[in-house]
């Protein structure tokens, strides 16, 4: 196995890279076609004030602004849109993180979607989800339908990593080729490569599938191979059978080889050298669930998961969940889960009860979450959080919500947290949310 190189120089700020890639994308598009009047401009703003105490009795009042903007024009043979989202934070009280102010551009890209052939071209900071790739990149993404049920996708750019301890790469590229019969199946082959100065630090290939042979059966899954370690990273498959509208049976299988799966992460926390993630470990997770909608307003489910490890002990996780709602604006849920592991820490009961009631434009929510350990964790056997939230819709576009959360955990005796959120949606034209 290769020894990962430790970073010795700070990575360029992600926001600068994102802005650069957006500007480049804008320039490319402007050169490519005439500017169009946007037929839809939408946005939403969330202003959030958190209130809590820190570990050292410091008083934390971080104020956040989350802003998402979308402008699109669909007058031509396709739709061109600009999507930008990010957040900023300022500490009104003591410092909540390393810096008193912080921010991030989560995404910012120009997109073109043709009316024919599902052709999509995105340029900028974006989240690429294609087969083995689940990556945030500053770059270019292309996808299209081809002849005879084939589809192709490709992406190239700079991997957007945050605060890396270990090199995250300066170039990432990959693609996916798939064949589909929309009613019955879709099978894709995909690959990605991340490199630093031309040397590959991640090389992954995989197959993903969705099978729908008959109306009541739905199978999804993915297998991913690491070319650098020459081992399978993961196999993960889930099959669902829906014999009636009210009943759904599901079975899942996951197999993970830690040495191949955690081969190139950018944080020490999940690295193979930290003593927490054991390189020789292999995990099997086999599980199943049954979901039953007794009526339109009552849903019940039961689940079971078995975890088996080569090095660590095994564990069983099982439980039941119930949800119901009424026509009078009441919705509620109850759940009980049991973790039965081979170590004392992995033996506990987990309870949750929640209810929310609407009163016209107002709503009230209570949420109780309790974990009862068989033996004490840091001197405590029972930990819980009790949250109460209230919201008021001043209009379809303007909402204020506030919550108080009381927590008794392994680390805190009586922790009280508060949050106030002002949400405002604005814009013209009909778009998704």
């Amino acid at each position, binding site marked *: 196995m290769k020894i990962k190189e430790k970073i010795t120089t700070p990575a360029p700020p992600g926001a600068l890279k994102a802005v650069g890639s957006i500007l480049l994308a804008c320039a490319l598009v402007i050169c490519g076609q005439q500017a169009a009047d946007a037929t839809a401009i939408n946005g*939403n703003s969330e202003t*959030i004030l958190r209130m809590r105490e820190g570990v050292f009795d410091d008083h934390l009042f971080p104020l*956040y602004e989350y802003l998402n903007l*979308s402008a699109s024009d*669909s007058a031509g043979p396709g739709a061109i849109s600009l*999507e930008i989202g990010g957040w900023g934070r300022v500490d009104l009280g003591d410092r909540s*993180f390393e810096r008193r102010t912080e921010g*991030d551009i*989560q995404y910012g890209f120009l997109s073109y979607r043709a*009316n*024919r*052939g*599902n052709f999509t071209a995105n340029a900028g900071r974006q989240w690429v*989800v294609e087969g083995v790739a689940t990556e945030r990149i500053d770059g270019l993404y292309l996808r299209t*339908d*081809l*002849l005879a049920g084939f589809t192709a996708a490709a992406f190239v750019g700079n991997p*957007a*990593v*945050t605060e890396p301890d270990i090199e995250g790469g300066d170039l990432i590229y990959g693609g996916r080729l*798939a064949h589909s019969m929309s009613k019955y199946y*879709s099978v894709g082959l995909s690959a990605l490569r991340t490199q630093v100065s031309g040397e590959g630090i991640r090389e992954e290939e995989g197959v*993903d599938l*969705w099978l*729908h042979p008959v109306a009541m059966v739905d199978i999804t899954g993915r297998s991913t191979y690491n070319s650098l370690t020459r081992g399978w990273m*993961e196999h993960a498959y889930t099959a*669902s059978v829906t014999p009636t509208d009210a009943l*759904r049976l*599901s079975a899942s299988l996951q197999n*993970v080889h830690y040495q191949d799966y*955690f081969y190139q*992460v*950018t*944080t*020490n*926390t*999940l690295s193979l050298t*930290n003593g*927490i*993630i054991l390189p020789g470990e292999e*995990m099997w997770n086999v599980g199943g*669930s049954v979901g039953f909608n007794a009526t339109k307003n009552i*849903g019940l489910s039961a689940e079971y998961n078995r*975890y088996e490890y080569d090095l660590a002990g095994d564990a069983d996780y099982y439980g039941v*969940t119930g949800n119901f709602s009424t026509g009078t604006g009441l919705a509620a849920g109850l759940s009980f889960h049991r973790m039965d*592991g081979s170590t004392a820490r*992995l033996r506990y009961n987990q309870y949750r009860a929640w209810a929310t009631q609407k009163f016209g434009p107002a*709503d009230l929510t209570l*949420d109780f979450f309790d*974990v009862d350990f068989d033996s004490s964790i840091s001197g405590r056997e029972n*930990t819980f*959080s009790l949250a109460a939230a209230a919201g008021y819709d001043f209009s379809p576009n303007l909402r204020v919500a506030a*919550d108080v*959360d009381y927590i008794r*955990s*392994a*680390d805190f005796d009586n*922790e009280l947290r508060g949050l106030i959120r002002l949400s405002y949606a604005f814009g013209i034209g009909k*778009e*998704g949310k």
Partner: protein
Amino acid sequence: MKKTAYVMVMGMMLSFLYACANTNSIARVHPEEVKGLPRCAECHTDQWTALSHQAQDFYLKHKIYAAQQRDACNTCHKESFCVRCHAHKEEIKPSDKYKDRPELSLPHRGDYLSRHRVEGRINPASCLKCHGRQNNERCKTCHR
């Protein structure tokens, strides 16, 4: 020179295959507004019945649907919806941000900071979906 020619030929071939595809693109916006957790089978009898958000295993399977046909997700969800959970860099847990939406399957409910050293041992591979390449800031607070 060889490389350029190769790329040009590939580009022309793909353009030809695209031109012959002759498929209609998935609608950019769902024709009817959908509220709450949709049960797609109420209207659909085609392959989209699989996307019922009320199914107990939808949370487990949605990654594959998104990786295969993200345009279908985009008919109702914009990028701003996805980043609520799949953020590049985030300081507020989704389950903290949306306490007034208890019906959603938001990760890390309750006091996960204390609990993650217990639960994280069960399936750390699931952590890598959000942490390990992004969202490393919270990890670095304690894991130096």
